[in-house]
């Protein structure tokens, strides 16, 4: 009888391992249990997904905190309602990479990045934020790392490989694959510079957050269940080899679908980072990111935490 009453919702997703919580919740029927009839809408980039949520074409999504997201929140279009991907000491997180040329020239540690070029997708992206945090921690001005907006991950890799930029930071599965090549070296972990980095968040339209509380709660419940399964199988590895295998197969239905399972599996495993338990949200990290955006004048100074986050749904810490 629940099926008859099921609410149809659209969930925006990118085909990345970091979006697995939703895939798990869908495949294992957790959404159904909550009376949600989910349809995935796949995007090639986070920004159109944010716009689609703002325009109510999509109901829920998971994405990094970007300038675009904050601006849409300021206009009263979207709200962050929970946390997703999270950097944690001890679990493989994002890595800092340098080109062979830079490595040979002595950039063997993030402290040597002063005056070096650093690949980012665009101004205001998480890469940009990370570069500045590294500079801050190492004690020099953010502007002393020369960021190069290259817009596409592929373009950054090309530039790094050919030594046209010196450094970059990226999620572990790509980092590990790249580090196999002699042209690229790993020199550090992002987690050392940004403790408890709230990398991605769950968000929805402001309309849903304010007027559809029940629906949002049910979505978060199913999402959390999916996240828990994922963490247990691939991050904490407490569920055993069978669960690990099953989980990778499940994720492979959505990610790296164009590759055979044997080739895809290592990438999926390498890309597994913690998705927050219960979608709890590290407000401190969010605040830090918001402040950074303001200091870079990428968003209006008038944006407040309340405009950005609806704290009433999940545990805040």
């Amino acid at each position, binding site marked *: 009888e629940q099926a008859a009453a099921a609410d149809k919702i659209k969930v925006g997703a990118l085909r990345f391992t970091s979006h697995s919580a939703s895939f798990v919740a869908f495949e294992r029927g957790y959404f159904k249990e909550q009376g949600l009839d989910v349809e995935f809408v*796949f995007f090639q980039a986070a920004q159109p997904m944010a716009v689609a949520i703002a325009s109510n074409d999509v109901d829920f999504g998971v994405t990094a905190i970007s300038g675009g997201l904050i601006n849409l929140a300021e206009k009263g279009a979207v709200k962050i309602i929970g946390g997703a991907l999270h950097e944690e000491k001890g679990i493989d997180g994002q890595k800092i990479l340098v080109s062979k040329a830079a490595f040979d020239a002595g950039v063997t540690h993030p402290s040597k990045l002063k005056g070096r070029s650093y690949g980012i997708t665009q101004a205001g992206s998480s890469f940009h934020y990370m570069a500045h945090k590294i500079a801050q921690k190492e004690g020099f001005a953010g502007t002393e790392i020369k960021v190069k907006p290259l817009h*596409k991950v592929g373009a950054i890799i090309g530039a790094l490989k050919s030594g046209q930029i010196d450094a970059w930071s990226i999620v572990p599965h790509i980092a590990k694959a790249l580090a196999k090549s002699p042209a690229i070296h790993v020199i550090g972990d992002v987690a050392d510079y940004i403790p408890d980095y709230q990398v991605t968040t769950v968000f929805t339209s402001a309309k849903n957050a304010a007027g559809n509380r029940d629906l949002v709660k049910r979505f978060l419940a199913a999402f959390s269940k999916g996240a828990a399964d994922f963490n247990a199988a691939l991050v904490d590895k407490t569920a055993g080899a069978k669960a690990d295998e099953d989980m990778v197969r499940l994720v492979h239905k959505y990610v790296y679908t*164009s590759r055979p399972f044997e080739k895809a599996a290592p990438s999926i495993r390498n890309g597994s980072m913690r998705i927050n338990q219960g979608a709890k949200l590290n407000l401190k990290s969010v605040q830090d990111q918001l402040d950074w955006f303001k200091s870079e004048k990428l968003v209006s100074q008038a944006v407040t935490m309340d405009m950005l986050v609806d704290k009433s749904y999940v545990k805040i810490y």
Partner: protein
Amino acid sequence: MSDATVALTAPAEKPVRFRGGGFRTRPLGIISPIVFVVVIGLWELGSQSGLIGKLILPAPSEALQALLELIETGNLWKHLGASLQRLIVGWTAGTILGIGVGLAIALFSYVRAGAQPLVSAIFPIPKIALLPLFIIWFGIGEGSKIATILFGTFFPTVIATYGGVDNVDRTLIRMAQSFGVSWSSIVRKIIIPGAMPAILSGFRISIAIAIVLLVAAEMIGAEFGVGAYILLAGSLVATDQLIAGVAILSALGLTIAWLIGKAESYLLRWRT
């Protein structure tokens, strides 16, 4: 003596030099496959020998591998089918609208004065910049994808059409008017056939633009489609798949160009 000899010698008789011909190309069907084979062969050799770095430009054989995978899994047809549908609908609609507006611009002074600057102003707007607007206007379904391709096709067709009409011989129009041929007949029987070479040449351009825009179009919530496949390959840095996807687009472009060539030699058979 010598004078007499000279007089007796018949003047040189030589054939008149042929000065005509040329400026008309013959079809040489065999050349083009050879060129393709050579280009791809050299690339493969370069890759095998390590001259061409593996990560960024994979060997054609690797791309072929990815392509075969795509065929085996049956995904090729899903991707190609989705893209072709968008292409056909978007291009056809853009072309029909484009020819219509192009004719209107060429034929009516008021339309020209009003619309030509609008075309010049809107054509250079990057479709990618407008993606957010397209999402709002046309949703995240097929609408926005088709609209992207439609917009991309529309403008070059408008320009090619009115350029072609401007170049139609006016004496032919005067002749038809002298026979009291109606305005619409003149447009159909003189203006359009006269502009046809330019319009077909415009097709070659607009179809290529439409294929290029597949990628932009399929940025928006596309599950299947060659553009989506390429985008995904790009974001996963799977260069073999990327090249395989690009090869599909190339093959598509080639096929359609060949069809346009056929259409040209049929529709323009009256040309010298």
